[in-house]
């Protein structure tokens, strides 16, 4: 019995997860090393990877800050009523349920050039949609719940007593957060950050809609892969995809490491 299940499971994993990865690695070398290198170093590829990098850095920084604060408020804030907290809590999860394309659509509807806000910003020279800001906003939307959801359960579990003790000993909000709360949530935040980075790198649909996918201007790495496939330029697509896959594996390793540190702390 045992052997059967272990064997079957390993087979499923091998077929579903491992083989596809291996295929990308092989595909990238279809035209040999030069094919791979060319695919990776062409200007649009370099730009796309750079775009992805920028978006990820900004999004991770912003959502880490706001995500942790949101988690703190949802769990600890006395100034938010219980009903309101429950409502906010359920709204936090919404981006998970939204299809990325719809996410992109929402940003375009709200901030596009023919909308109220868009037409205000346009003459100022600030382009949101079909430009970097729009891409960032779309990715912020999609990754928002990740860190919040990682931090909230930990905050609930550790309870507020240590923080109250710090208050009675004279520590104000910042000191208490930094010296008492942060050490307890540190690894959950890190895990959330890794998840956010992975998700931001992988973001495809929302950014595709919002950025207009202008090659060399607003194209991210994932969008470039899409374009390459549509143009039957498979080797090039593989090259970029391999870089992305490699980062994913690295991130996966980070994820597992952070997860184990997080669990060890509990």
């Amino acid at each position, binding site marked *: 019995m*045992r052997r059967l*299940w*272990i064997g079957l*499971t*390993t087979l*499923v994993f091998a077929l*579903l*997860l491992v*083989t*596809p*990865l291996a*295929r*990308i690695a092989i595909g990238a070398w279809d035209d040999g090393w030069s094919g791979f290198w060319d695919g990776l170093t062409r200007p649009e590829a370099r730009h796309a990877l750079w775009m992805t990098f920028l978006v990820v850095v900004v999004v991770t920084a912003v959502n880490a800050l*706001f995500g942790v*604060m*949101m988690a703190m408020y949802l769990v600890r804030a006395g100034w938010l009523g219980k009903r309101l907290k429950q409502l*906010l809590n*359920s*709204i936090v*999860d*919404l981006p*998970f*349920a*939204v*299809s*990325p*394309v*719809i*996410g*992109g*659509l*929402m*940003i*375009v*509807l*709200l901030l596009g050039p023919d909308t109220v806000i868009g037409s205000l910003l346009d003459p100022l020279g600030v382009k949101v949609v079909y430009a970097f800001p729009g891409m960032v906003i779309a990715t*912020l*939307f999609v990754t928002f719940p990740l860190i919040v959801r990682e931090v909230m359960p930990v905050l609930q579990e550790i309870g507020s007593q240590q923080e109250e003790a710090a208050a009675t000993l004279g520590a104000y*909000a*910042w000191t208490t957060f930094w010296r008492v709360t942060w050490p307890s949530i540190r690894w959950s935040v890190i895990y959330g950050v890794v*998840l956010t980075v*992975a998700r931001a*790198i*992988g973001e*495809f649909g929302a950014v*595709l*809609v919002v950025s207009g996918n202008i090659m060399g201007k607003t194209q991210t790495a*994932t969008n470039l892969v*899409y374009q390459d*496939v549509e143009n039957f330029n498979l080797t090039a*697509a593989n090259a970029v*995809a391999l870089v*992305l*896959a490699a980062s*994913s*594996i690295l991130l*996966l*390793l980070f*994820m*597992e490491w952070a997860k184990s540190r997080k669990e060890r702390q509990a």
Partner: protein
Amino acid sequence: MTHVLQSRWWSWGFRSAVMLYFLVLIVLPIAGVYGQSLSGSWAGLRDTLTEPLAWKAVVLTIKLALIATAINALLGTMAAWTLVRYRFPGRSLLNSLVDLPFALPTAVAGLMILLLLGPRSPVGQWAESLGFTILFHQPAIVVAMVFVTFPFVIRAVQPLLEELDRAEEEASYTLGASRAKTFFRVILPSMVPGIASGSMLAFSRALAEFGAVVLVAGNIPGRTMVASVYIYGEIESGNPAGATIVSVLLLTLSFAILWTVNHVQMRRNAG
């Protein structure tokens, strides 16, 4: 005294900033899309809702997502069981691999499936010999959905299995139940909430999936075009109104699922 004032201003600043951020980033866009869908003319609304291609896309998406979810429910339960109950070399490797679909960009996943199941690959040729094509047909969509939602059921069932007190099983044995009976009457029931919630999350995700699907589906309207691709198509062809209305449909469905999952989990925690 200044200390207090200082910290009060800072608190106020932070609170407003975070709440504003939340409002503008999450609440406003979602409200916006609903508002937009209802702001057009009734005729426009009716036209879009009755557009056959739109309907076909939605129905197709639901059908394929259900299939993918069913597959994942089975595979996921089996995998969760194996990973929790058995010790074997490579177990922690497999356990880490479960998260791979979460870490991998969906476009890359699509590419992988494209390469693996294309008409010139071994698998593609085997399928052709059996008389059906995978790539650019519905099976490819299901494969993409299964890949992308693979972790959901596993990660939902694992903690439940880990929590299960061995003593419950042992009690069942001492009362004379066989292994099979114990599995079905004692163990499986405790796994069911995880299978259910994991499946619902997987279904919701499968409905929404775009990246992996768009690369492998072929996207033939009415045949292999899923809802998210249809929406994309409408946006690109300058019909945001149509896109919005179908989006609202999809959103409402996803929100309903999400709400159900939360509701059930709350009940479970309270009870």
